[in-house]
């Protein structure tokens, strides 16, 4: 069953076509990879799915409803979590608070109950805290809960972003270059983490440059080049696709 359908989507910036009639379908429960050279439109597609951009034309459907043009927070609320290529953490908040902000749409406590410290709000707070700690455990940061997010090393910041995105209990998780800047061990751990996330019932769509990561973990892969989708298929098919080799993978594979 399709969880995300991108139908004939184009995105134009001041006369420049960043995406040109791209269509693709992500099935529920799979790990879907999006690859392509720099400037191919991968991040643009992410921004478009998450509502930061409004598509110039075309439609985006998520779980059977059109989400094109919805505000970003609405898209987060309907169940799409994301991370950013150039990490966007709340640097001066604690690691735990970063995840707790991610739980914003899951919890419901409002201004009045928060100010008055009603028993109900206190209870919600406790639940939020426990769930957030569980997520920190998932990404291996449970011992860093009180540190400031900005003080974490790079690899841990990437994992914290994943925990924050998971906090909104998404059914689809968008990861924008999750392995960037990680060393070999960290990459191994990342692969384990992404598989665990999938086991939790979350569909994963990821942009990644590291071919080992992509070929290793993805069920299916789409290739973008100059804003166009030039191929789609299993890792095996992509590896052997002459067009992909020519424009992106080069001769070494």
């Amino acid at each position, binding site marked *: 069953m399709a969880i995300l359908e991108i139908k004939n989507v184009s995105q134009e910036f001041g006369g420049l076509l960043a995406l040109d009639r791209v269509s693709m379908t992500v099935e529920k429960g799979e790990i879907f990879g999006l690859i392509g050279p720099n400037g191919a439109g991968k991040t643009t597609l992410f921004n478009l799915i*998450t*509502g*930061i951009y409004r598509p110039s034309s075309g439609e985006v459907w998520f779980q059977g409803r059109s989400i094109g043009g919805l*505000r*970003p*927070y609405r898209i*987060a*609320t309907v169940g799409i*979590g*994301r991370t*950013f290529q150039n990490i*966007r*953490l*709340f*640097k*001066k*908040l604690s690691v735990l*608070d970063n995840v*707790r*902000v*991610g*739980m*914003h*749409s*899951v*919890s419901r*406590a*409002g*201004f009045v109950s*928060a*100010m*008055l*410290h009603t028993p109900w*709000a206190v209870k*919600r*707070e406790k639940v*939020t805290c426990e769930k957030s700690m569980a997520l920190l455990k998932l990404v291996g940061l449970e011992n860093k809960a*009180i540190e*400031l997010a900005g003080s974490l090393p790079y690899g841990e910041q990437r994992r914290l972003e994943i925990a*924050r*995105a998971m*906090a*909104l209990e998404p059914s689809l998780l968008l990861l924008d270059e999750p392995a960037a800047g990680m060393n070999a061990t960290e990459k191994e751990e990342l692969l384990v983490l992404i598989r665990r996330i999938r086991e939790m019932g979350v569909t994963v769509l990821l942009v990644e440059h590291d071919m080992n990561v992509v070929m290793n973990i993805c069920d299916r892969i789409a290739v973008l080049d100059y804003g166009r989708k030039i191929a789609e298929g299993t890792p095996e098919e992509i590896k052997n696709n002459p067009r992909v080799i020519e424009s992106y993978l080069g001769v070494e594979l």
Partner: protein
Amino acid sequence: MEAFILQYVDIYVLQIMVLIGINIIMALGLNLITGVTGQLSMGHAGFMSIGAYTSAILSLHYGMPFWFCLAAAGLMAALAGVFIGIPTLRLEGDYLAMVTIGFAEIVRVVFLNLDIAGRGMGLSGIPATTNFTLVWGLVIVIVLLNAGLLKSRPGRALYSIREDEIAAEASGVNTTLYKVVAFAIGTFLAGIGGSLYAHYLTYISPQDFDFMRSVEYLNMVVLGGMGSIPGTILGTVILTILPEVLRFVQDYRLLFYGALLVTLMIFRPNGLLGDVRWIDVKRTWARIRGQSLASSSSDS
């Protein structure tokens, strides 16, 4: 209570204490907008004047009871805040700074030309209902409510907007709504502060709420620490007392203010207590004690 305090405290000291209390209410409101949510408002005195005039006019011309005037002052200021906030806060960037300056200026010009507000002469003979007990009672209530807010779900959402608006949206925070609500609460407090001010000095005029006053409140928030309640209170206490201490160099006061802002931003951009966390203080303390324990045990 008031009489009891007056027996023991010098009237001049008491006066400063009351002003500190009023300023804390004002500054906490601005802290919520600028320090916590990161939206620069530079017309806080404008909202204060709306509160002050609303309260003064209601009690002078319509004989309304003080409590009613106080509440109406807060609500009127908040209403103006929402009116200004909705078109401005949906934009990213520094538009709010300019719009609030402009709005405060419009408000000042309107009061300057309004018969019911006494035009340039202002209003005098406002009932002196503000006193120490009332102001500090309110300060305590407001600090408690504010602290409750800041360490809960909506408070964290406000901080997240300051840190990264795009990431906040991606985490499910309706940033426009939260910015407007923060602005409404902040301007409500400015209205309350204005009402208390009017009923304390018993005389107000448009000059009391000029741009420099807005800058003073901004200074209090910035000096103490953006986003921190203890920081804001510290900044307010320092900047309310300092001019009294520096009375003999009155002319240089603003020169000092200006230089202070630049220096602070360069060397401590988050203010004195802005990035000091209670938990870090405790940890440092534990480490120091741990070290001294370790050294004493190795001695023995």
